């Protein structure tokens, strides 16, 4: 009886040890999960309302339309069929579904790609010139055209508007004299 008990103790210990080791192994195996950089690490918690359904589709198209595909020539991630753009658009969709705002999403992409990724440049730094210069050029152009037109119209009006303003012009005086003679 004692010998059987002595044999049972190592078996029981072995079984317990096996459960302990395998349990530890399983728990560590499940603890190991893939983790990818997430938006909340960089732009914080979502500040908007989680979207779904048709609203999510529409908003995804809008937001993705403002993000440049980094492997394409001037295409947004909404318009490009490249795998990179498809992945980026999927990420935009996932972030909108979690309640991230357009500004947060743009900040997230800008953080890794820079302002290059935004198809609509921000009104700051050197970018201000992009917004100001076309308007300034337009105003300058209109001003030049307007001043030219004014000069031209003034030039055209001069001989007809004021007949009495050239009393010293001998040639005109002679013409008037001849005309009056012809009338009489």
């Amino acid at each position: 009886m004692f010998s059987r008990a002595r044999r049972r103790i190592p078996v029981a210990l072995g079984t317990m040890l096996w459960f302990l080791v395998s349990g530890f192994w399983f728990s560590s195996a499940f603890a190991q999960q893939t983790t990818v950089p997430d938006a909340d690490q960089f732009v914080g918690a979502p500040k908007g309302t989680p979207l779904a359904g048709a609203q999510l589709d529409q908003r995804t198209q809008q937001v993705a339309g403002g993000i440049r595909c980094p492997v394409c020539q001037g295409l947004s991630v909404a318009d490009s069929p490249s795998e990179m753009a498809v992945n980026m658009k999927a990420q935009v969709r996932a972030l909108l579904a979690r309640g991230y705002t357009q500004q947060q999403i743009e900040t997230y992409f800008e953080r890794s790609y820079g302002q290059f990724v935004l198809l609509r440049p921000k009104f700051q730094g050197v970018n201000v010139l992009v917004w100001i210069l076309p308007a300034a050029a337009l105003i300058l152009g209109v001003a030049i055209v307007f001043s030219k037109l004014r000069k031209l119209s003034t030039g055209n009006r001069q001989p007809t508007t004021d007949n009495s303003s050239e009393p010293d012009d001998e040639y005109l005086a002679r013409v008037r004299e001849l005309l009056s003679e012809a009338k009489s």
Partner: protein
Amino acid sequence: MNRTVLIVGAIITAAIVFVLVAGLGKDPRAIHSPLINKPAPPFALKKAGSDEIVDVSQFRGKPLVINFWATWCGPCWEEHPVLTAGARELEGQVQFVGVVFQDDETKILDFLRQRGYAYPTVIDDRGRTAIAYGVGGVPETFFLDAKGTIVAKHDGPLTADLLRENLRKVMR
């Protein structure tokens, strides 16, 4: 009027010349990474050919080279021997990690079997890690210092000289 036209013309010409001169010598396709001098985005991805998860935070304490590549990318084939040789030569001093995206695991394993490997290669499913690193194409390589800060980034295939030059920045 002629003087005004001359002055305006000179200003416009000077601005154009300035922009052209400033752009000389720069690669127009290169995207400046805003991640330089910032902490590298952390990730833990599945190793190609196994269920093992490679967490890059485990390599903190020594410089880390993160190479984004794919088997369908020709220049990645060119630089693979350079990276493999570098990893073997600097084993214990610098850690190398390959991140493959937009690819097939079987093709990755075939590639590594045929061309050799000296460091772990992980699979970036749906390219989320690549997006967080601002990857615009492959190959792209990031050089991290021992603290996990991105010190340098190289777009395009690495030569032995380029690898050495970038490693010098993180091994100071």
